């Protein structure tokens, strides 16, 4: 082995050389340092533009994540002029023509959020820093969506929220770089309460089981407020951890609580399990206070209905959209999704498809991918033809306003995808609220951040 001595002189010499080596980059002029001249972060270089699809591929919301990913891929095909073009022809803004966005072909990267805020942020960061994604979209858990939205605001890219139903996403956690097409807990409450009153009367006692995070909390608050406004009482609200798979211990106390309605503020795999547990405990066959015991699931999805099977028969809930709608946008989307995958899309798929198209359209109209330009194009934008009827993207909180569907589990579904039927299409006016509504107060949109 060679003998080496660490002398002070030797160390100083080495240090000086290393220091000089490190300083070398600073003598290059600006042209070597990429991205310093575009004015915004991750400005697309070359002939492609990269979107980042950040969805849960594992965890309780994995089914929703998989369906979102299908819709994203479909949207990219349509933007690049492949397939049948889907909603491009029905969209009221005709800026997109299937030749990519601003002349650039759309490429994408995907990531797994694991339904965890930390993992989701790591995944989004790698998309932004490594893959140069200009826009991040996805979600399925509001906690994750809020965490990623915050990250995108700091990093200076646009976040197009996917499935996130918490009031906070466009309420106290709203961000100037974040946009939501999906509806929220308040809208569910406003749409459901009148229907529930009509079906079950105004003298009911509700027991809430609530997923223990931002979405559960705000939805529960919204449903409680809306049902109490029509005369119901709230017996109890029990918070359940998101990772729970067996809800028996939460269901048993419901029987002795004197409640006659169980409200399940659960989603995805959680809701499938809690509803199945509740039905197994025979809750729906009980008579309490002289009334039939009922179950309500405020936020429904086709995938949950499929997972819960016959248990959802007659159960009321709300959705953002349904593939059984008959407008031109819905028909076009359902047709191309069905042709590609062989089954109808869920409302998670529809919202992310719409979000991707809305982003692309905004970039096309703004003539830039700069987040500030996109924001300007999306704020107070009125559009139609994406399946939800006339829709308004409110500029003051970046929330979309449109009709909300009240759904009920079908008694004899023709097939597993047809398990829900539309009870009422609640008009947009009934679910609108002021920006400073108490349930949404406390946030600060801030100003758009282009990142560079």
């Amino acid at each position: 082995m060679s003998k080496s001595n660490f002398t002070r002189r030797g160390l100083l010499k080495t240090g000086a050389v290393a220091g000089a080596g490190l300083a070398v980059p600073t003598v290059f002029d600006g042209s070597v340092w990429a991205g310093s001249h575009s004015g915004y972060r991750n400005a697309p270089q070359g002939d492609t533009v990269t979107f980042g699809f950040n969805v849960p591929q594992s965890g309780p919301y994995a089914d929703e994540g998989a369906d979102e990913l299908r819709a994203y891929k479909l949207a990219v095909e349509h933007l690049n002029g492949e397939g049948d073009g889907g909603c491009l022809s029905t969209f009221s803004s005709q800026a997109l023509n299937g030749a990519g966005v601003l002349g650039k072909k759309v490429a994408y990267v995907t990531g797994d959020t694991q339904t965890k805020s930390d993992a989701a942020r790591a995944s989004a960061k790698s998309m932004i820093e490594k893959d140069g994604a200009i826009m991040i979209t996805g979600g399925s858990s509001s906690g994750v969506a809020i965490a990623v939205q915050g990250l995108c605001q700091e990093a200076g890219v646009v976040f197009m929220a996917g499935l996130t139903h918490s009031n906070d996403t466009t309420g106290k956690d709203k961000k100037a770089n974040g946009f939501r097409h999906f509806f929220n807990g308040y809208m569910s409450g406003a749409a459901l309460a009148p229907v529930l009153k009509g079906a079950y009367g105004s003298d009911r006692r509700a027991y809430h089981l609530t997923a223990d995070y931002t979405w559960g909390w705000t939805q529960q608050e919204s449903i409680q407020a809306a049902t109490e406004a029509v005369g119901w009482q709230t017996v109890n609200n029990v918070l359940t951890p998101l990772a729970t798979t067996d809800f028996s211990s939460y269901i048993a106390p419901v029987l002795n609580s004197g409640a006659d309605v169980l409200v399940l503020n659960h989603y995805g795999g959680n809701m499938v399990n809690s509803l199945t547990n509740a039905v197994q405990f025979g809750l729906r066959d009980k008579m309490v206070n002289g009334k039939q015991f009922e179950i309500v699931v405020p936020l429904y999805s086709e995938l949950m209905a499929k997972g819960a099977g016959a248990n959802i028969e007659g159960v009321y809930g709300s959705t953002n959209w349904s593939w059984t709608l008959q407008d031109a946008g819905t028909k076009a989307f359902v047709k191309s999704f069905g042709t590609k995958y062989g089954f109808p899309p869920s409302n998670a798929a529809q919202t992310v498809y719409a979000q991707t198209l809305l982003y692309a359209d905004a970039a096309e109209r703004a003539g830039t991918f700069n987040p500030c330009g996109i924001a300007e194009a999306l704020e107070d934008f009125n559009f139609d033809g994406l399946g939800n009827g006339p829709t308004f993207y409110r500029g003051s909180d970046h929330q979309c306003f449109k009709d909300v569907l009240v759904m009920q589990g079908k008694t004899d579904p023709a097939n597993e995808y047809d398990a829900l039927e539309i009870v009422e299409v609640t008009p947009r006016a009934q679910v609108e609220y002021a920006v400073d509504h108490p349930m949404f107060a406390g946030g600060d949109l801030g100003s758009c951040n282009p990142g560079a």
Partner: protein
Amino acid sequence: MLGLDKKNSALLLIVIALTVFAPFLMNPFPQSSGLAQFNAGYPDLMQRFVIFGIFAIGFNILFGLTGYLSFGHAAFLGVGSYAAVWMFKLLSMNIVPAIVLSVIVAGLFSLLIGFISLRRSGIYFSILTLAFAQMSFALAYSVLTPLTNGETGLQVYNDDPQILLGNGPTVTHLFGFEMNSTSTLALGDWAFQFNMGYYVSAVMMVLAFYLSMRIFNSPFGLMLRAIKTNQTRLNYTGVSTRPYTLAAFVISGMYAGLAGGLMASMDPLAGAERMQWTASGEVVLMVILGGAGTLIGPILGAGFIKYFENIFSKINENVLHGWFAALPDGLENAIVWVLHFFVGKGWHLTLGLLFMLIVIFLPGGLVEGGQRIGRLFKRKKSGDDASNTKPAE
């Protein structure tokens, strides 16, 4: 140099060189080539490498030296993160108070848990630490929501007090140097990213590494090794081992707190998941994979696991189809079908297989692998030199 012998000085210089040149070393493939997928030289991942390196170095001081296997170290990391984010919320976005407080809080917390858990050894100790960590997770996840913001994760809002903020930066910074500021050096088809946050974390890791070297070579370190070898004998000779194990436990807890504080400094959000038992298990894997009881092993293990987690998990079926597009369709689909179990969300499977292989064939971890390769070359050079190699530590 600096109170280290020649061999350890060389090791320290190697670690310094690796961390300084990481932006180049991690980015070997040109951006337009298909292999760019395997580049790891972007700020977030490099930060993770060194931060989890610190975490693993600290864990190794407890596990590698005393043999006490803690399954609850993620709790200290999580506590450190929460402490740091609270500093951001209350004071300003400067990372110094945040990191100081996170180390202190994690130290106190580990003192409490260590004091109780170290009354037992072996599997009972492991189970106790696991129980405490899961308790902390459950507390952070729901019971202490006002303090931790539950599942959403603690983050900084515009309306937080931040009494020292003034006109200072609203992103995390070290006396004005913003953690997320990155300069990109474009050389031909390569783009090397130099990130302030990474270099701050890297300096911390080098310091942490140096400290762990000094601990390994100190009389205190020798005592810890004696505990690992035969604790009963020490007790019979009249040495009380608990102060030593407790000190090791608290030191490694403070390392975890430092890692947690740095994580929050790079990205000011603290989620409860980083306290979950899977996170505690991860650091055990890192240390064993790299080589428990060796100096550089934990850093290698941390890098190895984080690389798999972030790079392999992003290879999806489309990427696979891209790689094998040249093959006939049937064959291509068959290969992709087989491989897709091992990449993307199946990266755990690949990691598990590699972990099995390493534990079976290289019980000393990656460090032993390196030593074997080293011996192979030495034997070729000068026949009988192999007999007097000392195990590197």
